[in-house]
């Protein structure tokens, strides 16, 4: 990164913190701090909800996924519009009319304080750990790209968002998200333009995308019904429906946002914005990955995108093996580039027979490149001992810092920071709200005045920022912990949704039924996760169904026992 790029990133970070802090004066009392005085317009809330989901992991991880696997991951989002309609018709009106601060407060009104405390605690546990991962993933990549220590990049990623969230509350989060969203989408569109312009002369976008299609990267539908496959049409429309209903309907980081609108209709309209735009936006992110694949097909590409591991191998005991692989890789990529050019030109103007033959040659060359890269990755795995090692997260940042002109690099790095801050701030404010409203104000100081509650809220925000940063450093060192944390979260999502389904959909559900149901739901997920290979998206459905079935059965037994006791009781004289 050059000085101008650093200046752009620094200017953006300073401006966004200043912009967030300006809203501190509107957050002098609890309602302003936690619910924005219920006055935010639907489009602000809608953009904020979308910005929250576009974390830095999306910018670097999903583009990397597009580079390796293409558009297949898009199927994960197919159920989202349906989930939004379901939530608009069910949970959103309930939450808004209940005038609550947290989703879990609603459960106390329906069941008891125990239901509220347990679900809120599970939220704090899973969300704080996942916030650590949200901070860790970009920090690890940026530390390699910038050559900085991990602690420094964790601080750089987490501190700006922590400052404006601490002082400005949910209003600062929502209004800065609008700007972050503009920055993120602007960055992605810039990347698309640069990548398309980077195609060689005589190779049009259509023929280039057909090359990507030949490798399977334009596949957006997989209709095979396989419970062990994460990304199929069926897991994306059935299992993911439960995930999205749970995430948008019961996760405080989302619910809090639509509690800030002035009416139910505005809350519903804000959610429908995601219903319209989420799939196209995710397609744009994955398209960047596919275009990166095409860019590196025609341009010399690094064999490994993580420069630290590349250097370690070059200087370590397997240096000779690595050099031999590198020579083979250079030859194979040159052959692939030539074959791709021939195939793209044949596609643009040749005969069908020429086109098919050229495409076959390109596919053979691509298979050879892939095989050598697999060998190189295996070499890293054997050296580092990290069996899950992958360098997909480094593809987009490597492109940004090595291929883009001065100024544009700074703009795109700022966009990655924008994505990180939008996710971190939303999670911080929701963690702080749940801590204060579900525990401090509920159990410790029910009569606390606004000033003291605000003080504790700011302290809670700072505490969670420090806690998540510590988790981020720890997660980075352990590597595979990130996957553990993601799986850990999937234990709760479906089960918590099940409790809300019981609360709203089953009038006879009792507090004990909900509690036992929650345990049973999490137990079923634990069993499926341990003893089967069912993909984790389906765990959301399993958890929700487990809670509802066990909750209904236990509630029915409890009612029957109570009825029996009242019949046994002697009649009053």
């Amino acid at each position, binding site marked *: 990164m050059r000085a101008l790029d650093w200046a752009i990133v620094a200017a953006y970070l300073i401006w966004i913190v200043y912009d967030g802090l300006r809203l501190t004066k509107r957050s002098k009392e609890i309602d302003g701090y936690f619910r924005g005085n219920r006055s935010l317009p639907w489009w602000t809330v809608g953009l904020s909800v979308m910005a929250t989901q576009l974390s830095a992991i999306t910018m670097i991880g999903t583009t990397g996924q597009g580079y390796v696997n293409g*558009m297949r991951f*898009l199927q994960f989002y*197919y159920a989202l*519009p*349906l989930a*939004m*309609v379901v939530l*608009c*018709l*069910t949970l*959103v*009106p309930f939450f*808004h*009319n209940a005038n609550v601060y947290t989703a879990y407060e609603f459960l106390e009104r329906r069941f008891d304080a125990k239901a509220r405390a347990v679900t809120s605690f599970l939220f704090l546990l899973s969300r704080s750990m996942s916030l650590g991962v949200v901070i860790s993933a970009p920090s690890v990549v940026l530390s390699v790209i910038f050559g900085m220590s991990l602690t420094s990049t964790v601080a750089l990623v987490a501190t700006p968002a922590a400052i404006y969230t601490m002082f400005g509350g949910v209003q600062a989060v929502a209004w800065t998200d609008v700007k972050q969203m503009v920055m993120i989408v602007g960055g992605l569109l810039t990347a698309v333009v640069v990548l398309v312009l980077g195609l060689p002369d005589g190779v049009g976008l259509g023929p280039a*995308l*057909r090359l*990507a*299609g*030949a490798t*399977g990267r*334009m*596949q*957006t*539908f997989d209709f095979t019904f396989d419970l062990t496959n994460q990304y199929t049409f069926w897991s994306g429309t059935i299992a993911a429906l439960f995930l999205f209903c749970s995430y948008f309907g019961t996760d405080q980081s989302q619910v809090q946002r639509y509690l800030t609108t002035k*009416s*139910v*209709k505005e809350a*519903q*309209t804000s959610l*429908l914005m995601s*219903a*319209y735009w989420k*799939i*196209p936006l995710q*397609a744009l992110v994955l398209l960047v990955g596919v275009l990166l694949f095409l860019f590196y097909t025609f341009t010399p590409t690094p064999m490994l995108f993580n420069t630290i591991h590349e250097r370690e191998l070059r200087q370590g005991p397997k240096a000779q093996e690595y050099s031999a692989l590198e020579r083979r890789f250079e030859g194979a990529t040159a052959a692939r580039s030539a074959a791709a050019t021939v195939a793209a030109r044949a596609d643009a103007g040749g005969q069908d027979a020429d086109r098919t033959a050229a495409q076959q040659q390109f596919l053979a060359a691509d298979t050879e490149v892939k095989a050598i890269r697999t060998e190189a990755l295996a070499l890293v795995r054997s050296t580092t001992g990290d069996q899950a090692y992958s360098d997909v997260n480094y593809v987009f940042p490597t492109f940004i810092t090595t291929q883009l002109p001065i100024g544009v690099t700074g703009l795109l790095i700022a966009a990655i920071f924008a994505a990180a801050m939008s996710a971190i701030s939303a999670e911080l404010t929701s963690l702080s709200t749940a801590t204060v409203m579900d525990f401090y104000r509920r159990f410790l100081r029910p009569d606390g005045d606004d000033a003291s509650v605000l003080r504790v809220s700011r302290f809670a925000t700072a505490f969670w920022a420090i806690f998540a940063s510590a988790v981020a450093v720890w997660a980075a060192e352990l590597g595979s912990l990130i996957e553990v944390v993601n799986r850990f979260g999937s234990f709760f999502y479906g089960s918590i949704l099940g409790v809300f389904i019981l609360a709203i959909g089953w009038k006879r559900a009792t507090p004990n039924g909900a509690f036992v149901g929650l345990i049973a739901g999490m137990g079923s997920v634990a069993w499926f996760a341990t003893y089967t290979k069912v993909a984790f998206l389906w765990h959301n459905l399993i958890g929700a169904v487990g809670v509802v079935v066990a909750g209904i059965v236990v509630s029915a037994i409890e009612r029957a026992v109570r009825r029996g006791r009242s019949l046994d009781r002697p009649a009053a004289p």
Partner: protein
Amino acid sequence: MSSTDGRNDGMTSRYVGVLVVWVAVLLALYAVQQYFS
């Protein structure tokens, strides 16, 4: 129905609109997949 039950104020037509756009987007994505494969 009251204005807060989530089903009136023109919201029903918006939900139908979301579903129509959803189907259209999926069909368009399928067409893109077939065209470029």
